[in-house]
């Protein structure tokens, strides 16, 4: 009896927390006229995918999506590639300034983007790359690199030293040991770091707002918000459909790759 009551209570709380997201999905499949019913209907009386059709074919949504995909993939590949080498160096090599460097990484991981953004804006204008996806990739490394480096460092600290030593005794060079021994061991960590970096870039808003003001280079975050501002009367069902579509990659990651996410929680997202 007590068990059932506890389960009921727990699930009520879970559903209340998830309600805004459930409501988003429900709103996105309601016909426009049903939104303005008073009192509102909970279950749609009629399910329609009209908003999704319009979103995909009559708005620049697909263009924004393409931009977001290119942007997040490039940022992730660049950042995780560079950070894997860097983390390996921070964990396995000894040289002066190594500890300081690790501290600096943690410090930069906490830096507010509003401090960096104005100089970065000037830099992009000066380099002549303002208003392009390239400028965003460069700017995104400023928060993604410290993050990835910190996360990968904690993953790699978990790989026993003996593995590399054994390979070295067998006559491998340090680079061979890195590719043959460390990389396979670090792979799960690299995958979850990539996932987190991808999500971080996918959701970024401030840099995109400041650095890009043409549709051709706008990612989803600022793109969808511009659809809210530019329409005269706000079409909530269209915006909810856009929100659902925007969350699809997250849902996929959650459903398929969850074990990598939980691994990431343990390693570095929060240490304690």
């Amino acid at each position, binding site marked *: 009896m007590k068990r059932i009551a506890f*389960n009921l209570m727990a*699930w009520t709380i879970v559903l209340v927390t998830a309600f*805004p997201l459930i409501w988003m999905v429900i709103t996105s499949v309601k016909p426009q006229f049903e939104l303005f019913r008073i009192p509102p209907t909970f279950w749609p009386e009629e399910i329609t995918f009209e908003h999704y059709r319009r979103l995909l074919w009559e708005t620049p949504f697909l263009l924004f999506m393409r931009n977001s995909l290119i942007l997040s993939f490039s940022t992730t590949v660049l950042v995780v590639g560079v950070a894997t080498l860097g983390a390996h*160096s921070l964990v396995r*090599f000894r040289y002066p300034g190594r500890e300081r460097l690790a501290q600096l990484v943690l410090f930069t991981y*906490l830096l507010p983007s509003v*401090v960096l953004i104005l100089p970065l804006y000037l830099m992009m204008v000066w380099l002549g790359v303002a208003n392009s996806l390239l400028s965003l990739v460069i700017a995104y*490394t400023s928060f993604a690199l410290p993050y990835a480096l910190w996360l990968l460092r904690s993953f790699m600290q978990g790989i026993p030293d003996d593995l590399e030593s054994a390979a070295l005794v067998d006559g491998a060079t340090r680079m061979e040991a890195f590719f043959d021994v460390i990389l396979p061991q670090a792979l799960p960590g690299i995958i979850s770091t990539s996932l987190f970096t991808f999500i971080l870039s996918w959701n970024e808003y401030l840099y995109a707002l400041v650095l890009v003001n043409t549709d051709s280079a706008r990612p989803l975050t600022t793109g969808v918000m511009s659809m809210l501002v530019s329409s005269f009367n706000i079409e909530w069902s269209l*915006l909810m459909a856009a929100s659902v579509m925007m969350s699809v990659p997250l849902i996929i990651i959650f459903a398929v790759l969850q074990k990598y996410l939980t691994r990431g929680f343990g390693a570095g997202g929060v240490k304690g």
Partner: protein
Amino acid sequence: MLGVMLIAPCVLIFCAVIVYPLVSAVYLSLFNIFTPTLKGNFVGFQNYADLFAGEEFWRSLFNTLVWTVCTLFLQVVLGVAAALMLHQAIVFRALARSLILFPYFVSTVVAVLVWRWLFNDLYGILNHLMMWSGLLQMPLDWLGSMPNAMVSIVLVGAWKYFPFVVIAILARLQTIPDQLYEAATIDGAGAWARFTDVTLPQLKDVLMVVVLLRAIWDFKEFDLIYLMTGGGPLISTQTLPLMVYKEAFGLDAMGRATAVAVAMMAVMLVFMVLYLRRMGKEEAR
């Protein structure tokens, strides 16, 4: 030598996109720069003098503190409670966890759009539910008036970020040895006593870290507040990051904007140093 070569790309990128902008921000804050032309002249510490003499900076700092303290408090209370709940055996626990964690991973843009629709004064479900249950007589203007606007962003902030606390606490709960609870039960401790005497002391360290991290991140939050209220009504919910943006791109005063950013950074440095110290201690262990 190889070690230095491997870290070199990281260091180079760091210098280009973090160290240089950081130094440059301090430098720019000594100039008076017109944003559209990016032309300016040296004014020394005039930007800072103006800032500290005016009311807007202090008001924004005050708003930032109110927002940070309130939303952080809710995040921690809700986060610990939810973690304790999800630590128990409930049906479909994996699904329940995913649903609780989802708000943290969803884009702020999505969260804001959904909540603005929920808060909508005419057709929003929230006003309707509250009137239906008798909590409200009249529809409430959630975002356009004070103190409602501050309360609204604090609530949405708590909803969006409490899963972070859940993740951290849940991970720690799983490592508390069962024997501690068994011993306490034998000593006659009830459920509440077990919580205060066993669970809380065990959680103390991780809670410290979580509070510091979240304090830093809430303090610098831009997206959520900017998209929910834009700092309004007037400047009632304008926090320091929003003020930076407004000075730079609304009022075209790039120099003053960087001065605000640098001043904000100085306040944050306190938390950042505390956090770094803490992490330093843990690394040493």
